[in-house]
C-alpha cells in the first residue's frame, strides 16, 4: 500500500506541473479535477485497506531530498487514518470542483496548485523522517497560500494572504525547532530513530509546547487562529473545504504523531495547557461564528471551534496516558480522531454549500441572502444535513464524537491529580457551551441563508447548482448520516491507530446489537444512533400519517399573519446581525462588543443608526503590540541603511570581536 500511496502523492505533485503546462486548454479543469478525484479516492481506499487489514507499518525509501538521508515514507495505522480522511475530503472537493470549476474566471490561478496541495498533504501524512515532514509541510503551506491568493485583486484577500504567509512561516520555524530538539545532538532525523532517543522531561515538555504552537498555528488554536478566518474564506470554496476540512487535520496529525508516538512519556501537567487551550478555542471560535456576517467566515470560525474540541480530547488523552490509564486514553483519543473525521465531512459539505450559494447568487454576506430553500431545494436539503450534523444533534455524526468526548470527561475523577479533577469538568462545561452555541450559530447560518424571504435581487433569482457539485455534497451528506448511525464501523477502523498511539483501543463495536456504542465497560453507558434514527423517523412518520388519515389534511395558503401586522419589506425579517444580538450581549466581555446608537438631532430627518463593534481580543492584546514593537524596531534599525563605510566596517568588526569573546567564554 505504501508504494501505491507514495506513487499517488508524487503523481499529484506531477499533475500540478502538468496543469501548469495545460494553461489555456478548455478541458484542463475537468481533467485536473477528475484525476485529482480519482487519485484521492485511491488514497482513501489505501487508508481504509491498511486499517481494515490491520497491516503493520510499511516503509519505503526514496532517493530524493537530502543526499545522505533521502526521503523515508511510512504508512502505519495513524497515517492511514489521516490518509483516509484526506482521501475522502480530497475526492469530494475535487468532484465538487469539476462543476464549480466551470465558473472559474481564472482557472490557471487554481489548477497548477490544487493537485500539488493534495500531494503535499499526502506527503506530510506519509513522511517518515523530519526532513520530508517539514519540507512537505512547507510546500503544503506555500501552495495553499497561492490558492488563497486566487482572487488576488481584492484588497482583503491580499491582506489575508500576507497574514497567512507570516503565520505559516512562523509555524514552520517553530516546528523546525521542535524536530531539531527531538533529534538531539546525534541528529537522528528519521522518526524511527527519534522514537528510541531518551529525553529529559524538560526537553519533552519543551518539544510538546513547540508542537502546540507550530501545529496549533496551522490548525487554528487560540491565540494563533487570527489568520484562519481571513485566509480560509478567501480561497475558492472547494479549496476552503480542503483547507478547513483536511489541512487543519494534517496539522493535528503532526501534533498527534509527535505527542503520542515520537515523544514518549510527557508529565501529566502538560495536558493542562492542551485542555485549557482547546476548551477556550472552542468557545471563542464559536462565539465569533455567532456574530460574523459573512457565511464563509462563519464556517471558518466554526472550524476553530472544532479544532478546539479535538485539542481538548487530545489533552484528555494525554492526561489519561500520563496516569497510566490506556483504556480511558483510548476513549479520549478515539473521540478526537472520530471528531476529526466527522468535522472533515460536515465542514467540507458546508463550505461546498457556501460555494454553491456563492455561485448561484454571487454573495457571501448573510444579510444579502434568504429564502434559498425555494430556489435551491436540493442544496437546501443537503445543507440541512450539514448544519444538523455540525450542531452535534443526534442521530447524525457530530453528536457521536461529542458523546464519546463527554463520556471521557465523565471519567475524570479517576485521574489522580486534584487539579485535573477540577479542570476537566470545567472544561467539559465549556465544551458543552461550545456545542450549544454551535447549534445557535448554525440555526442562524441556515435560517438567514435558506429560510425566510430573499433579501436581495441576486437571492431572488438564484438557481440550483450543477450535478457534479450536488453529487459531491450528497456524498458527504450520506457519509454524515452513515457515520452517525453506524459509528461503530468508524471506531473499529481507527482502533489500530489508537492502539499505536496509547497502547490500547476501545472494544470492537461491530458485533454490538443494533450498532450500539458501548465504549468502555466501566462507563456503563451506551448510545445507538441507528435506533434513535429509526425511532424518530418511525414516530414522526407514523404520527404524520395518523394525523393526516384520522384528523384533517386540509390546507390553505394565505399571507403570513405576523401578529396582524405583516410587512412586505424583507428588511423587517431578522437578519444576521439581529439574530446574534442576544448572544452578543450576553457574551459582550469576550467579544469586546460595543453598541452605540447615533441619534440625529431634533429636526434632522436622517435615520438613527445602531452600530455594533466587536473585536478579537487576541488580535488587540497580543498581535497589535507585537506589530507595534516590530514597527518601532524597524524604524529604529532603518538608520542602519544610511551609515558611512567606516561605520559599517566597525559594525562588522564589533560583531566579530563579540563572537570571539563569546566563544572564549563558552569554552
Amino acid at each position, binding site marked *: 500500500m505504501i508504494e501505491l500511496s507514495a506513487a499517488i502523492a508524487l503523481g499529484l505533485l506531477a499533475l500540478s506541473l502538468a496543469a501548469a503546462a495545460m494553461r489555456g486548454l478548455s478541458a484542463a479543469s475537468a481533467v485536473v479535477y477528475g484525476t485529482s478525484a480519482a487519485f484521492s479516492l485511491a488514497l482513501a481506499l489505501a487508508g481504509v485497506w491498511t486499517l481494515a487489514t490491520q497491516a503493520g507499518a510499511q516503509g519505503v525509501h526514496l532517493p530524493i531530498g537530502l543526499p545522505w538521508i533521502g526521503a523515508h515514507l511510512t504508512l502505519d495505522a495513524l497515517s492511514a487514518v489521516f490518509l483516509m480522511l484526506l482521501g475522502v475530503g480530497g475526492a469530494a472537493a475535487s468532484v465538487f470542483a469539476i462543476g464549480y470549476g466551470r465558473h472559474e474566471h481564472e482557472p490557471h490561478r487554481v489548477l497548477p496548485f490544487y493537485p500539488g496541495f493534495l500531494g503535499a498533504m499526502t506527503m506530510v501524512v506519509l513522511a517518515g523522517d523530519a526532513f520530508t515532514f517539514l519540507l512537505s509541510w512547507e510546500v503544503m503551506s506555500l501552495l495553499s497560500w497561492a490558492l488563497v491568493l486566487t482572487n488576488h485583486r481584492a484588497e482583503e484577500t491580499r491582506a489575508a494572504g500576507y497574514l497567512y504567509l507570516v503565520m505559516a512561516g512562523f509555524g514552520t520555524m517553530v516546528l523546525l525547532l521542535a524536530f531539531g530538539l527531538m533529534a538531539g545532538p546525534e541528529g537522528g532525523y528519521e522518526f524511527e530513530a527519534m522514537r528510541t532517543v531518551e529525553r529529559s522531561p524538560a526537553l519533552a515538555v519543551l518539544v510538546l509546547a513547540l508542537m502546540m504552537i507550530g501545529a496549533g498555528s496551522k490548525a487554528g488554536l487560540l491565540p494563533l487562529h487570527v489568520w484562519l478566518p481571513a485566509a480560509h474564506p478567501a480561497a475558492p470554496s472547494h479549496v476552503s473545504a480542503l483547507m478547513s476540512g483536511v489541512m487543519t487535520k494534517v496539522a493535528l496529525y503532526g501534533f498527534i504523531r509527535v505527542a503520542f508516538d515520537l515523544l514518549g512519556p510527557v508529565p501529566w501537567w502538560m495536558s493542562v495547557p492542551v485542555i485549557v487551550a482547546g476548551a477556550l478555542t472552542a468557545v471563542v471560535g464559536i462565539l465569533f461564528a455567532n456574530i460574523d456576517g459573512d457565511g464563509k467566515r462563519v464556517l471558518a470560525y466554526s472550524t476553530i471551534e472544532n479544532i478546539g474540541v479535538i485539542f481538548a480530547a487530545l489533552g484528555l488523552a494525554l492526561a489519561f496516558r500520563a496516569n497510566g490509564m490506556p483504556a480511558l486514553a483510548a476513549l479520549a483519543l478515539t473521540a478526537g480522531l472520530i471528531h476529526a473525521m466527522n468535522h472533515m465531512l460536515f465542514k467540507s459539505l458546508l463550505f461546498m454549500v457556501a460555494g454553491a450559494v456563492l455561485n448561484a447568487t454571487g454573495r457571501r454576506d448573510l444579510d444579502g441572502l434568504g429564502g434559498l430553500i425555494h430556489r435551491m431545494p436540493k442544496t437546501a436539503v443537503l445543507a440541512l444535513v450539514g448544519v444538523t450534523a455540525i450542531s452535534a444533534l443526534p442521530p447524525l455524526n457530530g453528536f457521536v464524537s461529542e458523546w464519546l468526548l463527554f463520556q471521557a470527561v465523565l471519567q475524570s475523577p479517576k485521574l489522580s491529580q*486534584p487539579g485535573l479533577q477540577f479542570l476537566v469538568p470545567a472544561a467539559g*462545561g465549556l465544551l458543552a*457551551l461550545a456545542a*450549544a452555541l454551535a447549534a445557535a450559530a448554525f440555526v442562524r447560518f441556515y435560517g438567514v441563508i435558506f*429560510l425566510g424571504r430573499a433579501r436581495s435581487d441576486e437571492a431572488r433569482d438564484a438557481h440550483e447548482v450543477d450535478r457534479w457539485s450536488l453529487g459531491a455534497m450528497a456524498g458527504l451528506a450520506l457519509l454524515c448520516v452513515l457515520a452517525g448511525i453506524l459509528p461503530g464501523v468508524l471506531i473499529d477502523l481507527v482502533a489500530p491507530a489508537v492502539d499505536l498511539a496509547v497502547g490500547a483501543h476501545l472494544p470492537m463495536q461491530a458485533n454490538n446489537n443494533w450498532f450500539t456504542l458501548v465504549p468502555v465497560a466501566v462507563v456503563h453507558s451506551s448510545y445507538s444512533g441507528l*435506533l434513535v434514527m429509526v425511532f424518530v423517523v418511525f414516530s414522526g412518520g407514523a404520527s*404524520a400519517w395518523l394525523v393526516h388519515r384520522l384528523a384533517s389534511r386540509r390546507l390553505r*395558503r394565505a399571507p403570513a399573519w405576523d401578529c396582524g401586522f405583516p410587512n412586505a419589506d424583507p428588511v423587517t425579517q431578522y437578519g444576521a446581525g439581529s439574530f446574534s444580538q442576544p448572544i452578543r450581549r450576553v457574551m459582550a466581555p469576550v467579544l469586546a462588543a460595543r453598541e452605540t446608537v447615533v441619534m440625529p438631532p431634533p429636526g434632522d430627518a436622517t435615520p438613527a443608526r445602531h452600530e455594533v463593534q466587536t473585536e478579537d481580543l487576541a488580535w488587540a492584546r497580543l498581535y497589535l503590540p507585537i506589530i507595534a514593537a516590530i514597527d518601532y524596531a524597524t524604524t529604529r534599525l532603518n538608520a542602519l541603511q544610511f551609515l558611512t563605510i567606516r561605520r559599517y566596517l566597525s559594525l562588522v568588526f564589533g560583531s566579530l570581536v563579540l563572537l570571539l569573546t563569546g566563544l572564549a567564554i563558552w569554552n
Partner: protein
Amino acid sequence: MELIGNLLLQAVQMLIVLALAPGLTGLVRKIKARLLRRRGASILQPYRDLARLMRKEVVLAENASWLFRVSPYTIFAATWVAAALVPTFAIGLHFSWTADLIAIVALLGSARFFLALAGMDVGTSFGGLGASREMMIGALAEPAMLLMVFTVALVAGSTELSNVVAFMESGEVGIRVSMGMALIALTIVALAENARIPVDNPATHLELTMVHEAMVLEYSGRHLAMIELAASLKLLLYMALIGCIFVPWGIAPATAGVGELVAGFAFFLAKLAVGGTLLAVFETSVAKMRVFRVPDFIGAALMLGLLGTLLLFVSRSL
C-alpha cells in the same frame, strides 16, 4: 414471549407519556387559576384543544417551505422519543439502553433546533425574534444541564438513566449537597427549557416578552397541535426526570411483576401531581424576568452544576 412482554412494556411507556402530557399541562393551568381565585378551565381542556386543532384546516403562510410543514412532526418525534426513554414507572425497559441522559438532552436540542428553524422560515420579524432568543437561552441551558448530568453521573457512575435510578434507589447516596445543587440547577433548566415563568410566559401573547410563542406564531391547525403536544411532552419529561433522579422511590425495578408496575404507575401519577402543583405555586409567586436578566438566572444553574461537581470531590477524596 419475554421479548413481546418487554416490547409491550416499552410501548405502554410511550403511550402513557403521550396520554398524560396534556393532562399535566391542564393540571398546572387549573391550579394556577385556582391560586388566582379563578375557576379555570377543566383539566381536560388541553385534550379538547388538541382535538379541535387537529380537526381544523391548516392556514399556511404563502412563502412557507416544506421545512415549515415537516418541522412539527420532527419536533414531536424527537421529544416523544426522548420522553419515552426517561424512566417513569419502571426502569430497565427494553430500549432503555438506546440513549443515555446526554443523548436525551441532545434529542431535546434537536427539537429546539427545528423549532427555531421553523420560526425563521416564514420570514417574519417575530419568528426571528423568538428563534434568536430561544437559541440564546438554549445555549446557556444546555451546558447547565450537562454539568448537572456530570454531577449525577459522578455520583451514580453512569449516564444511563436506568442505572442512575437503580443507584439512587439503593440508598447508598446519603444526603449530598451536590445533589441538592444539581436539583436546583435542573429545576432552573427545566423552567427555562419549558418556557415557564420567570424565563418566558406560556400564557402571554405580548410581543416583547415572548420567546416560545413568537416562534410558533405562524402555526395553525394540526401543525400547532403537534407543537403544543410536544411542549406538553417536554414538561412531562422534565418532571419525570426530576422525579426519577431525585425522588426515585416507587419506580419498579427491571424484573418487576405486575403489582410493582401498577404501584410504580401510581407513584408516578402522584409525583406528577406534586410536581405540577409546585410548578403552579412557583409560577404564581414570582414575576417574569426581562430577557437580559435570564442569562444570570441560567448562569446560576451553570455555576450550581459546576459547584456541585466540585463539592463532590470533597466528599470523594475524604
